[in-house]
């Protein structure tokens, strides 16, 4: 990384070409997607003059909008819940010693390793068994709806959040917490005023990751969503089977713009909080209002 000389001659040309190739590989599909969302032809891949028809269709299409709304709800609720649970799990593993810690540690990361399909089948089986039990014990008939999607997303997001938060906790000097308790802070206050501000970037990064993964998920949502709780990716997937239309492009562009905005907002918030750090001398009172964000590498992940 810290090479002292700049590349020259052939290697320089090669590296430049490589960089452009990678950019092309990354962004050509995105550019195509955006361009054809404005195409007047019904067939994707054939330019039929500039039009906003597909966006109009999107605005009118209740099914797409319904699916989008479901996706947003699922993403927000599952992110909030998994950020809290994932952070708690990270704290438990990093700061305490308890029986079965190693097992818990290993099990926590299982959802990351297990293929989506397996996870989806597992969850589906779990829900149908669970509904059967509820039915026979309480006489209540439950069925798959938005809450099963949310629960499933929470199930895998906890793992991702706790990985990111844990990395941050690991990098934090534990003596800071000792210093806080030495200075009369209770455990809660030491967390609130010292640990928490230190791990905010980790938590924000974890939240961003969770949000993205939830918006992204097709496989699991496909299995566990019920009628009326179709998420946007599942809906788009369904549309493709009926035949590709530029409406899908328009929908994708909207999602793309939304996620880019999200990332930019979080970067902006991060920069603001850094600026504020220079001036503010009273963070004890207002530090919970600050929304910081994850590392830029995590932010970039959510673009893709």
């Amino acid at each position, binding site marked *: 990384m810290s090479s002292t000389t700049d590349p020259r001659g052939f290697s320089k040309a090669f590296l430049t070409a490589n960089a452009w190739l990678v950019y092309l590989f990354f962004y050509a599909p995105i550019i195509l997607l955006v361009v054809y969302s404005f195409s007047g032809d019904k067939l994707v891949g054939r330019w039929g003059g500039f039009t906003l028809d597909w966006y109009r269709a999107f605005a009118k299409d209740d099914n797409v909008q319904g699916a989008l709304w479901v996706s947003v709800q699922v993403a927000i609720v599952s992110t909030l819940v998994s950020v809290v649970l994932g952070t708690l799990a990270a704290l438990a593993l990093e700061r305490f010693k308890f029986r079965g810690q190693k097992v818990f540690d290993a099990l926590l990361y299982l959802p990351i390793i297990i293929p989506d399909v397996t996870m989806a089948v597992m969850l589906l089986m779990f829900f149908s068994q669970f509904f059967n039990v509820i039915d026979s014990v309480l006489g209540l008939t439950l069925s798959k709806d938005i809450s099963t999607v949310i629960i499933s997303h929470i199930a895998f997001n906890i793992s991702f959040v706790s990985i990111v938060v844990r990395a941050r906790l690991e990098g934090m000097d534990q003596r*800071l917490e000792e210093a806080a308790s030495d200075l009369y802070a209770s455990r809660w206050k030491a967390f609130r005023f010292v640990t928490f501000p230190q791990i905010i970037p980790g938590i924000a990064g974890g939240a961003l990751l969770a949000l993205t993964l939830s918006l992204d998920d097709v496989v699991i949502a496909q299995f566990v969503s019920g009628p009326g709780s179709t998420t946007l990716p599942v809906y788009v997937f369904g549309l493709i089977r009926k035949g590709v239309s530029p409406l899908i492009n328009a929908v994708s562009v909207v999602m793309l713009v939304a996620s880019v905005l999200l990332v930019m907002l979080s970067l902006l918030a991060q920069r603001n909080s850094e600026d504020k750090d220079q001036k503010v001398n009273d963070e004890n009172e207002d530090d919970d209002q600050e929304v910081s964000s994850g590392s830029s590498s995590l932010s970039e992940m959510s673009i893709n």
Partner: protein
Amino acid sequence: MAEEEIAAAVELQGLTKRFGADVTAVDSIDLRIEDGEFFALLGPSGCGKTTTLRMIAGLEFPTEGSLRIYGEEMGTLSPNKRPVNTVFQNYALFPHMTVLDNVAFGLRMQKVDKAEANKRAQEAIEMVRLGQMAKRKPNQLSGGQQQRIALARALVNRPKVLLLDEPLGALDLKLRQEMQIELKSLQREVGITFVFVTHDQEEALTLSDRIAVMHDGKFLQVASPENMYERPANRFVADFIGQTNLLEGTVEDAETVCLANGARVSVANDKAEGAKVAVSLRPERINVHALDDKPDGPSLEGVVSSVTYLGTAHSYRIAMDWMEIEVREENRPSRGHFNAGDSVLISWHSDGVWVVDN
């Protein structure tokens, strides 16, 4: 028990800390640290001194024994409920807070009114002469400034006992010497009991009223710096505090020790006859003479094997047939010095030596 006299600032009785089944970090130590004392826990790394300090702070809980602070049993009381504050090694200043917030932290946690807390914090920052740095972040300060802020952050709470964990360890020599003087005068000013941990014997000698030398979880000796230096309790202490030459021998009577080479030297001692001992001979207490000189007091013959110029002194290594002795002789322009290969006599005054158990 506490009523019989004024309670000690810190009193340890049979204090033990074990990690797991077979690591005993602190092994049943007893100690009284008096009110207003500047007390040093000195020892090589891994001797248990930091664990002892952390037990006083409440960051570790003892496995056995009693720990009282001004007569009150601490036991497993959590650190935030103890009347002590700590200056951590590398300071552990909160990086996301300004200097003022760092210093005011303890007061705010004790629910001191905000304006009052800020006022007192500002005063404490001024006390360590960093008044204009209050709005900065810790990473904008130099090591010495961070160290002073760490002191202010602890002292602003007016603890009954201030604990310092290798407080000057991260500073360079010049700054360390300055801070030693500052620390000493600060302690006199505030009158709080200071307990500090160090592996630097010079620092311990300079700063403290009393020193406890620790080794393998036990106290080898607890004494004033002077007593520690002049009358070390055993070989380890004699060697650890300052430099010394240890000449092995056997006690003949209360006045005489027979050295390993057969030479008899007269030195007052209270050891049993026939006991294996070592005579501690400090390098700066030894005089070097030419062979034809007739020194007073006991002397031994040897050959200079090396000379090192130290600026203020010459350090000689003098080889005798049975051991090598180090001698440090102050430089005086009027006097020459010896060279490697010279045959010399070394002598000492009988009150300049001390006998320790071997």
